[in-house]
């Protein structure tokens, strides 16, 4: 196994509301490895999205605050970085695709501008400018016949430009804009946006849901990030589009070679594209395993419940109906194992203390006393 590009250790994120302290993340551990797709599943409100926001350091403060833990990215703890440094990382090294393309695009700014601003701040476009200039020259050179005086001159020009490549000079705003636009359109093409030249001038409300989601993905990928966090990227899209988007994601992953953390409550999606899965319940990670392993042999009672909930033929259904009870309120969480009030195999110990998260089989960890005893 390659070493993880992102390690989350004992991450605690609390929300300090008037009503009380919401313990949204109660010390979760998570590893994401180079080039893998990790699925993070769980019911709505179990803290999946908070996890992703915590990684981005975008938890609204107040009321939210990351009270403890580490998020180690390339050996550095993101929680210790300054806001300015974080701004360098966000949208560049670590990017996000959000759940609802309807609300996550700014209604009064054209798609073009929304995509290009990412490029403008993170990419060194001066290089592009140089690049394009070189191309122009070479174009003209091709047209010229072998022994015209210009040819010589142009050759030299190309050489100069080649020299400039590494530390390019400042170019006029106009040239930069041109370069940005070019890149924007490239990116939109990359996410298979139909007729990108037209789209750049359009406003979000003029686009279909699928196109918007593509636009968002374009933003996320425009700087070829190391890690892409996709927070329920398909829930608000209809099934056909879902398939396309998922296909797109995995394809792009191969292209760019970045890791993906995909957050969902849909086991189907997990089965389809995830290498590994982590199951969350009420602010804890309760089970992590390779996708196959998990489906074959789920350990945690909750996970078992989840899997039972999937009808074999049809997949797009509210899956939690058959687990009795409901998600506990996180202000006054149940003592001990947070699942015990709903757990069919409840034991005395369960409401006393929280079960430790231990690796039971290779790459298959679970937090439940059922397996403690077996040991």
């Amino acid at each position, binding site marked *: 196994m390659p070493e993880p590009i992102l390690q989350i250790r004992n991450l605690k994120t609390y929300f300090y509301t*008037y009503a009380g302290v919401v313990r949204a993340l109660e010390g979760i551990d998570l590893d994401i490895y180079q080039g893998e797709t990790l699925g993070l599943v769980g019911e709505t409100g179990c803290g999946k999205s908070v996890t992703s926001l915590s990684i981005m350091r975008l938890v609204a403060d107040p*009321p939210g605050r990351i009270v403890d833990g580490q998020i180690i990215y390339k050996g550095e703890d993101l929680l210790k970085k300054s806001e300015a440094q974080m701004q360098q990382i966000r949208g560049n090294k670590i990017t996000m695709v959000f759940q609802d393309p309807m609300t996550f695009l700014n209604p009064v700014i054209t798609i073009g501008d929304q995509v290009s601003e990412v490029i403008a701040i993170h990419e060194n476009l001066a290089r592009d400018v140089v690049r394009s200039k070189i191309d122009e020259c070479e174009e003209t050179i091709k047209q010229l016949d072998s022994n015209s005086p210009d040819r010589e001159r142009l050759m030299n020009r190309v050489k100069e430009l080649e020299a400039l490549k590494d530390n390019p000079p400042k170019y006029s705003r106009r040239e930069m804009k041109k370069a940005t636009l070019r890149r924007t359109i490239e990116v939109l093409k990359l996410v298979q946006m139909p007729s990108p030249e037209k789209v750049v001038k359009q406003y979000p409300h003029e686009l279909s849901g699928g196109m918007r989601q593509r636009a968002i993905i374009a933003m996320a990928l425009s700087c070829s990030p190391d890690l892409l966090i996709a927070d329920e990227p398909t829930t608000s899209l209809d099934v056909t589009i879902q398939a396309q988007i998922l296909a797109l994601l995995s394809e792009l992953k191969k292209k760019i070679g970045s890791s993906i953390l995909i957050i969902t409550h849909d086991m189907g999606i997990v089965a389809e594209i995830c290498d590994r899965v982590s199951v969350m319940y009420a602010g804890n990670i309760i089970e992590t395993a390779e996708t196959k392993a998990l489906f074959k042999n789920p350990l945690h009672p909750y996970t078992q419940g989840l899997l039972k909930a999937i009808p074999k033929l049809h997949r797009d259904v509210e899956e939690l109906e058959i687990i009795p009870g409901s998600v506990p309120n996180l202000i006054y*969480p*149940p003592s001990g194992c947070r699942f015990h009030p709903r757990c069919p195999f409840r034991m005395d110990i369960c*409401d006393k203390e929280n079960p430790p998260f231990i690796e039971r089989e290779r790459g298959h960890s679970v937090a439940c006393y059922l397996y403690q005893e077996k040991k």
Partner: protein
Amino acid sequence: MTQMGQVKTSVERKSKSWFDEHAPQIRELKFTLYLLRQSPIVVAGFILVALFIGMAIFAPWIAPHGPEERFWNLPQQPPSWRFPFGTDTTGGDIYSRIIWGSRLDLTIALTVVASAILIGSVLGAISGFMGRAFDEALMRVTDVFLAFPALILAMAVAAALGRNLTNLTIALMVVWWPTYARLVRGQVLAEKERLYVDAARAVGASPARIIFRHVLPNSIFPVIVQATLDLGGVILTAAGLSFIGFGAGAGVAEWGLMIADGRSYLFQSPWIACFPGLAILLSSLGLNLIGDGLRDVLDPRLRR
């Protein structure tokens, strides 16, 4: 902790009394009060308002002189220990007159807002339920009323009725009811929606019952907020109107009128116009502080 869960379930099982049914609202209320105590702005507002209400109630005991007691041989006296705020052109003690004035002005404000709420909410509720023609008509009417700035409409109405305090009050009522009509109507419609969605309730729930059980509790907060803000607004508008010649007859202790009287002596005896103005400012400021605080606290979005 677990008990917590227990308690909740037991509540759900009990037969529903009004309080249980509105347990959320009640928790809301407790919570709201707690928040209000937290906000210094609101507290300041409460203090100011309390001050003026106190003045109004205890005027006879606080005020050193009567509202129309004039020291004819001491006109335009600058502020002194004897006359804390000085005297006006007829030798009336401005300090006392401001205190007595609080009675008049607060009464006007309360009367106007109270009756506006009454008329407004009744009409609003009816049109909300009857819907169709009546609703349409009422909304058009409110449109017309809302096509004028408050002061100007009040001006015209009062002018048509004839200039005196009673008519001024009536005019202000005429101006203010539409706001509440719309507010309550909105609530009713919202409630209707909810009822249709949740069919169980809709079955055999008489409008009256619905109003008292559901609409009232829900619209009470918005109405309170609106009312506090409007009290301030009415005080200002009333003062403005009596400043331009509506309202009380000469010599009456009314803030707006006092300013109007002091106007011709602004440069020689500024205190005559200055202090009543401060009274108006502070009283409506108090109400606005409260109203504003309430709005923030009751606005679920600003709450999180």
